[in-house]
């Protein structure tokens, strides 16, 4: 691979253990804790930060309201708050992209990105997510994130001749990986039979196919690519963004297969790969962290990002591909199905990839060397797609 131009260096990372509830912390507590842990990880002081950003998905999901006017007080860089980035669960990746842009444009030297969710305090997560749907074409029948994923999963199964057992492998893989992740909310491995026997939510989605409701927080510090660090440096080398935008009902038309084959995510992936000089991701990418709130989304993402080499991801997974000890591990952290604080979801995928690239992933560190990783995230119900390539 021709070495790509580094766009920004991730100097420090931090996340809190994901939990259903975080009763000991207020929202501001969560932000403060991860902010200072990320600075400590970067071996920097508060005075070194000259830009602050918050990755924040729709606030109705979080049990808090527009917190940047009160939740950021006292954080490093608070007097240089440069904005909230809100692309739903994908917010972490465009935040990193914007931080890299600020630094490349010499408008900041080091930017702190924070995020947090207190999802357990939200009065109606389902009702809030329901806003994603078009009131005319979608909300007329019980539409929510689970039903949307069920449509996607049944379509994917039909298109590839797969059954529910084939689809359960990805959950078994993730839960086994999550058992080794000290930050994961769900740390119990499960079997295929347990996935298949879990209570149905909307066929073919069962409870264990779905991510849990999670509170958590994450932060990263971004700096110039050439800054000296005390450990293996990790830089972002490519970004890709692509919006389908249309609501699901409006996409069920001839010629638009993106909801089932991930072709929109593939466009974002190609943009990121082009910037990072990646021409054959299946062989040039060493590891992937993809945001997938349901198992089927991970499978579609693997294919869309070109990591399955044109093969079906579910079948490859059944053969042992994408496991932690495989040639190209996917979600060795356990992914969002082991913990899904929505605002922090994108940042957490980045953080997990950074640990693997640095080689300090602890019990969840993959055995093979990792020099290049791809990270993806999706905002809305497969509507906004964000991809970044990280390189050590």
């Amino acid at each position, binding site marked *: 691979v021709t070495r790509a131009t580094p766009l920004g260096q991730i100097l420090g990372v931090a996340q809190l253990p994901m939990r259903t509830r975080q009763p000991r912390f207020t929202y501001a507590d969560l932000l403060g804790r991860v902010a200072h842990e990320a600075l400590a990880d970067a071996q920097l002081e508060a005075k070194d930060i000259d830009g602050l950003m918050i990755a924040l998905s729709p606030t109705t999901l979080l049990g808090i309201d527009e917190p940047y006017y009160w939740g950021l007080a006292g954080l490093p860089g608070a007097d*240089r708050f440069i904005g909230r980035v809100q*692309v739903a669960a994908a917010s972490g990746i465009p935040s990193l992209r914007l931080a890299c842009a600020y630094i490349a444009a010499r408008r900041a030297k080091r930017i702190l990105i924070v995020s947090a969710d207190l999802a357990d305090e939200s009065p109606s997560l389902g009702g809030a997510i329901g806003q994603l749907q078009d009131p005319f074409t979608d909300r007329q029948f019980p539409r929510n994130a689970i039903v949307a994923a069920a449509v996607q999963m049944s379509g994917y199964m039909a298109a590839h001749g797969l059954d529910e057992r084939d689809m359960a492998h990805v959950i078994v893989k993730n839960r086994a990986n999550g058992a080794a992740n000290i930050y994961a909310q769900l740390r119990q491995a499960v079997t295929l039979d347990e996935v298949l026997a879990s209570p149905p939510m909307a066929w073919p989605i069962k409870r264990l196919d779905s991510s849990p409701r999670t509170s958590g927080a994450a932060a990263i510090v971004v700096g110039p690519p050439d800054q000296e660090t005390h450990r293996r440096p990790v830089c972002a080398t490519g970004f890709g963004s692509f919006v389908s935008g249309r609501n699901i009902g409006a996409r069920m038309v001839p010629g638009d297969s993106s909801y089932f084959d991930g072709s929109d995510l593939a466009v974002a992936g190609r943009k990121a790969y082009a910037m990072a000089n990646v021409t054959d991701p299946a062989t040039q990418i060493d590891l992937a962290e993809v945001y997938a709130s349901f198992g089927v989304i991970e499978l579609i993402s693997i294919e869309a990002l070109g990591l399955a080499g044109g093969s079906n991801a579910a079948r490859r997974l059944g053969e042992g591909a994408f496991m932690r000890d495989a040639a190209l591990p996917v979600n060795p952290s356990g992914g969002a199905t082991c913990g899904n604080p929505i605002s922090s979801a994108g940042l957490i995928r980045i953080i997990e990839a950074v640990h693997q690239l640095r080689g300090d992933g602890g019990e969840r560190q993959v055995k093979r060397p990792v020099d290049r990783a791809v990270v993806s995230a999706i905002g809305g119900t497969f509507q*906004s797609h964000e991809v970044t390539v990280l390189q050590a």
Partner: protein
Amino acid sequence: MTKTVEITGAAACTSRLFDNPLEFVVHDIVVDALTAANTSLGAIDMVVTAASDIMDGVMVATRSEIAGACGRGFMNVPSSAGHALAAAIALIESGQAETILLVGWGEGSKLRQHDYRGILANPFYDRPVGGDPAAMARLQAQRLKADGHLTEADMEQYLNVMAQRTQHQAPGESDPLAWLAPQWCDGAAALVLRAGALPESRGVFISDFGVAFRSYCPSGDDLDPALWVRDAFEHRRDRQALPGQAPVLIEASAPAAFCEARAVRGFLSGQKWHVAEAQINRSGGGAAAHFGPATGLHGLARASGFLADFEAGDDPHCGLVIDLAGPIGQSVTVAMLESRGGPS
């Protein structure tokens, strides 16, 4: 080597109440901006929006569609017009995008009957004692008045002048304290930004910007928006390079008339420039026609239009856009615009 950013097209509108559904209004504004830029949506790399959760009640995916982002890169920076503008500039300067469509809107008319911005207040310290944005604005005004920075009569007159410029209905005698609160309306704005070539083009450029921020309850004496504007201005990237001449115009936006007036007047009092009163908020400013965090984009769009039409021969001339967003205007962006000698 960073690139310069040119505004190639802009369009904006405000109304006491949109006659048409929001998505149609935004669509028309986007089309107008693209037409003014002599380009099409197909030439846009990325759409950046400033669309607030509390203003439009729609989710980000719907926002991206409203703004024309389908099939393109997208970034939503809803915290303020200035933040969205700064994001677009940084993306272009860093080479991550060549052409950006910057879009913002808000249905502020909904807040005229019930101002629900209380959710912006700190839930631990402020909300329990009624410290909502309206109360904070009164506290801020009281402090500025005590410090001799404003009088009630002056602020009432300021708002009436601005309301006439917006061509919206002036609050008049029915609400003598209207200068303390946003004059809510519906609004939308769109701008086409592209990587520019300063020596060749004669268009309007964004030559620099700076940001400053204060938390919801600024401590000590720091309630004066003029200080925040100075802080933002001093934190421009190229702050050593002062404008070659006085700005010929200023467009400012704040959530209340007193905040806007004080921010501009107090800032100017510390500069050596003189800007004619008539050239300050020719559009009427953002307090007299306020539609939420995206309001500043309306001022930016109008400022770029004024600058492009300015009669100044071949001499470069510059303008300032000052955006104060947030409950008491504490999220500040100052952008410097430069025009290279009239319409290209």
